[in-house]
């Protein structure tokens, strides 16, 4: 009860910014028309046959020990990628996955996961390349908010009737490749690169976040890219900031949607979170560069901006 009151109050205070979204419906009634669904909406629609819920978490055992009732489990590092070559899942493997999950082209898919929906957003990026875009939603706040609100969890995996999702080729217009990024770095193309890593990684003080193996040989960032750490787009409860706040956040870094954007990070997974915000919440034209710093920072002879001057293997 209390949480609903709080939600109502929040909605009331958010009302002044809502007109900014001219065609957005009132959030409380039909949040499923946008890119996000609220925990409250999802709990009311758990039994809907048109909704398939999919958890993409990074920590093992999280799904099994309690997931949103009816949710299926997808393992990002085996189901959504090719495990040997560094690539997104192949068309055949993706079709088999979609069939197993009971996803058709018109199914509303709600993705959620641990770690602020990082891997769920990465899943949304993979689904989008296979043509599942507008009907794919992220649960705003992810696992963290669902758990914090003490909403119900289930340990049983659902039995889902398989769909007939066809084998289709992945679209290439949502993915930036090394050549695209290099062209921007060399100013041969007028696009913007949004680097969402921490300022210390961006400036080249460190090559990888604390506790993560250094997988790049160089430190720094792609010339011309701007730094807006992914976490700045998120409220304390894990939900995304309002569209107006997000618009302002990126505009302050010079990104206003007037030019094509490429999102980048270390391995392309946190950057899918920002890619999702830019394309689905703000409607900007953005591609995700999944090669990210572990590809660019290892490439031979490419221009790099290294503010801190850190050199791998010694100063």
């Amino acid at each position, binding site marked *: 009860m209390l949480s609903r009151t709080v939600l109502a109050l929040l909605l009331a205070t958010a009302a002044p910014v809502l007109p900014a979204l001219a065609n957005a419906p009132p959030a409380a009634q039909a949040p499923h028309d946008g890119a996000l669904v609220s925990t409250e909406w999802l709990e009311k629609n758990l039994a809907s046959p048109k909704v398939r819920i999919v958890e993409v978490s990074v920590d*093992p055992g999280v799904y*099994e020990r309690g997931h949103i009732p009816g949710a299926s489990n997808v393992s990002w590092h085996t189901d959504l990628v090719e495990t040997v070559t560094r690539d997104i899942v192949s068309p055949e493997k993706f079709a088999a996955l979609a069939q197993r999950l009971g996803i058709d082209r018109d199914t509303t898919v709600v993705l959620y996961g641990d770690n602020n929906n990082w891997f769920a957003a990465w899943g949304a990026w993979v689904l989008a390349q296979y043509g599942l875009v507008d009907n794919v939603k992220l649960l705003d706040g992810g696992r963290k908010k669902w*758990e914090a609100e003490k909403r119900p969890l289930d*340990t049983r995996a659902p039995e889902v009737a398989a769909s007939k999702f066809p084998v289709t080729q992945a679209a290439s217009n949502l993915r930036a490749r090394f050549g695209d990024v290099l062209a921007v770095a060399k100013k041969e193309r007028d696009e913007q690169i949004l680097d969402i890593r921490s300022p210390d990684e961006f400036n080249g003080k460190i090559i990888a976040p604390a506790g993560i193996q250094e997988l790049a040989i160089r430190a720094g960032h792609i010339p011309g890219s701007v730094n807006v750490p992914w976490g700045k787009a998120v409220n304390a409860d894990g939900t995304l900031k309002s569209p107006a706040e997000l618009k302002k956040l990126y505009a302050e870094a010079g990104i206003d949607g007037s030019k094509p954007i490429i999102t980048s990070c270390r391995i392309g997974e946190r950057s899918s979170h920002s890619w999702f915000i830019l394309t689905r919440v703000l409607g900007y034209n953005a591609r995700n560069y999944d090669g990210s710093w572990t590809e660019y920072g290892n490439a031979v002879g490419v221009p790099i901006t290294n503010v801190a001057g850190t050199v791998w293997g010694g100063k």
Partner: protein
Amino acid sequence: MSLASDVGAGATLAPAAERYRAPILARGVALVIAAGLVVAAQRLAAEPGGTRLALSLTFGALFGFVLQRSRFCFFCLWRDLLDRRDPRGALGVLTALAAGAAGYAVVFGGWLPDPSGARLPPDAHIGPVSPILALAGAAFGAGMTVSGSCISAHLYRLGEGSPTAPFALLGTALGFVLGFATWNDLYLAAISEAPVAWLPRHLGYGGTLALTLLVIGALAVPLLRLLPERETRPARVEPLRAVFVERWPAWLGGLAVGAIGTLAYLRVGPLGVTAEIGGRSRAAAASLGLLPDRLEGLDAFRGCATAVRDALLTPNGLFVGGLVLAAFAAALVAGQFRPALPGGGHVLRGLLGGLLLGWGAMTGLGCSVGTLLSGIMAGAVSGWVFAAAMLFGATATLLAGRRLRLLP
């Protein structure tokens, strides 16, 4: 010189004085500890994401209580069987394995309906099977004999005021550092290509459970024949006395361990007592420059993970803390808290045995709890291999030690 004194005397404690009643002070302290554990669990659970921590503390406390009350000590149980042909403790371990295997099968069936593919159930302790695992098990068994207990038993005995346990645990931490130092060579020589063998992949859950129960049954039959004709316990024991003062029958402890193992796996993770000791040793060794720059492949294996965590409170740390505190409280009430000043023998045997325990637990990716209990319950071949090697190492060390008149 006898290095033995009270080391390893756990299972052979004389029956508590018939009319033993703990002093008010002891009962008061135990009550304060119990209340403190409850309050701590409540406070942890109230924090966002704190459920796992609260449950770890609770399961740890329950595990410590059960270990202390049933004196669930692998070495003592084994020695009872060898020396006195008393099979009750060994039957208790088999009970724990049977109950846990049944519980795990139920959980697995819900989590991973098809075990035949390439997937493994999340974080179950299914380790690589190699000669190194056997070596680790044998070293661990030798460490049990030398120090008088395995690691989990040293932890509950810490709560009983054992003069050996602190040194054995210190030795264990040093053994872990030794294990890290030898890991890379052993990994490249034999572990990296060792199969991670999981029985349900080949036999299904039903087949694995049937085979496990069959093996446990086959081990139990000869033990059952050794049971004394009649138990020498009084006809009627007051219920509170039976729970808090009398030693629990080993089978009851076994059932409780199987149940706690299953519930812990369902909600938090497999039982294990060395992840925290290993993780802290690893951090300490790293800061002292005693750790190899990289530990090849180590963090990709299942088992008692020693990956360095920056959190102050970890699930396994709370589990071990709860275990020791609950064992202390239980020992106070039962009149089994008997602190003693350590002598040279305690220090020497504790450190030396602990070193072997730690090296074995690091190299075997867990101890008699994490690799043996949690492994066999999960249908991991690694659990059985570790168990056989551990008993071999313990027996061989005991026989050799007695022949050399170093061990009682």
